[in-house]
């Protein structure tokens, strides 16, 4: 045992237990994560799981944040929190169930359980944001349960798209969530209604908020989140207007391009990039917090 080794060792190397834990985690969840990514890329996953395709950017980002927080993690005293074992037990039970929906959910539970067991609450807090990114990117059946409740949003989008088309001189009838252009019907379906786009936008907004350290200002954060919802809804109204127009005028090629092909991806990418500009504007023009001009009052 020499004295010089520990200092370099404590910074760079991992204890055998940590290596074993990381190795086992990779064995357990590697194939599952690969299945997610493969499904998102090839759209071979169910439509509910496709809602979480933002995980393709979110999961690497979460891993990067967690990895760069290693020094802080090491500095935390080892502390065991009993809730950690609770989460681990739950996660193990879900993993053992061999039901794919629940095996997915066992992944974030396992990570949170490990944080709590190894470093207690401070550990969970330190890894809170990357864990949040993982939770929100974990495919579940939640969209299926939410879909029936977004009918009002579908109706709203159909109504506004109908209004826009009418302004453009197109003969259109709106019935509930259906747009009738030249006797051809377009349905504003839940995932077309931008529920997926809304999820993705909010997820990207969350990453931007973290990256640009906007979160200390609650005012800017809430304005940015509200603006994100706005951009995503407006974006979808325009998209659905275009789709109904293409469909109604029998421009099938343009319809397929925007609906199924890379046109849709391009459209989403443009919306997401526009979020960066929205954030820039907010940082430039919105103050960190409301300032009540108390100075003036004291003068008067």
């Amino acid at each position: 045992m020499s004295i010089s080794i520990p200092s370099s060792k404590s910074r760079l190397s991992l204890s055998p237990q940590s290596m074993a834990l990381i190795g086992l985690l990779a064995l357990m969840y590697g194939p599952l994560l690969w299945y997610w990514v493969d499904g998102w890329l090839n759209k071979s996953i169910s439509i509910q799981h496709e809602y979480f395709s933002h995980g393709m950017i979110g999961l690497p980002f979460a891993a990067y944040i967690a990895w760069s927080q290693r020094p802080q993690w090491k500095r935390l005293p080892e502390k065991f929190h009993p809730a950690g074992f609770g989460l681990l037990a739950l996660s193990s039970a879900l993993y053992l169930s061999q039901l794919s929906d629940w095996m997915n959910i066992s992944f974030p539970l396992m990570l949170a359980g490990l944080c709590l067991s190894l470093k207690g609450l401070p550990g969970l807090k330190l890894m809170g944001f990357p864990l949040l990114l993982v939770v929100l990117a974990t495919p579940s059946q939640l969209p299926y349960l939410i879909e029936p409740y977004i009918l009002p949003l579908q109706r709203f989008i159909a109504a506004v798209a109908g209004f826009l088309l009418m302004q453009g001189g197109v003969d259109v009838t709106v019935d509930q969530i259906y747009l009738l252009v030249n006797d051809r019907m377009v349905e504003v379906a839940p995932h077309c209604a931008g529920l997926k786009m809304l999820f993705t936008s909010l997820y990207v907004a969350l990453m931007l908020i973290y990256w640009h350290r906007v979160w200390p200002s609650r005012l800017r954060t809430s304005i940015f989140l509200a603006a994100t919802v706005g951009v995503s809804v407006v974006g979808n109204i325009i998209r659905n207007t275009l789709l109904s127009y293409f469909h109604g005028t029998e421009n099938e090629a343009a319809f397929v391009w925007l609906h199924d092909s890379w046109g849709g991806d391009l459209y989403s990418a443009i919306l997401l990039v526009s979020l960066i500009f929205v954030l820039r504007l907010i940082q430039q023009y919105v103050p960190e917090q409301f300032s009540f001009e108390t100075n003036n009052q004291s003068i008067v």
Partner: protein
Amino acid sequence: MSEAVKRISTPKSVVQWVLVVVLAALVAMVTLPGYIGGQWPWSTQLPVADTTEIRALLKAPLTLPGWEPSSHQEVRIGRRPWSLAEYQVVNGATDGPGSTFGLLMRPQMSADQQPEVEWVDMQGSQGWQINDRQVVRLSVPADGQPVKVTTQYFRALDGRNTFAVMQWYAWPTGGHYAPGKWFWADQKQQWQQRERMPWVAVSVLLPIEPVGDIRVHTEQMTEIAETVQQSLLEFALIAE
């Protein structure tokens, strides 16, 4: 001092080793068989109980005691195949309100199909104006517990006709008009039987007097709906 440090540090690394052992056990039980067999739980779909009988609903009308099918055809609503049958009462007046009704059903075709927006599709395709929406509960006897069904009941106007409409998703152990209820029944089935829960979307259409009151037909509709659920349980939705 070194003793004190030791006393604190030992249980900590015990925690770490316990974690390693727990994960290793999970790997041995679940993950290794996957690596060896090349078959992962998430890439193999759980089967749904035999859907042959359910899919047959598209080909032939459902047998309903006390009623006789007068027509049957496959129709498309929202790009999905539905079975449309009309029934005539066997004993009694053969015309007038209550002597005939329509039955629209969307059977599940494969394990990956889940109840979705059938009711909206139907409303959209028929151009219905809907009002007087209410919830009607019914139950059918079965071995063991009676099967409970919660339906939505409303009046639909399509410009020419007025219907009293009763809708629900039927499955072997129950029925409800909300897809979310089927979802949890399906989850229970997955955990207990390692199988998906089969379902059929059912819509009973009773022509009534123009812009009439559906409340006076509630009793008859409930009876028809109970007969339909009963027959589905008997012929199509076979419970394990």
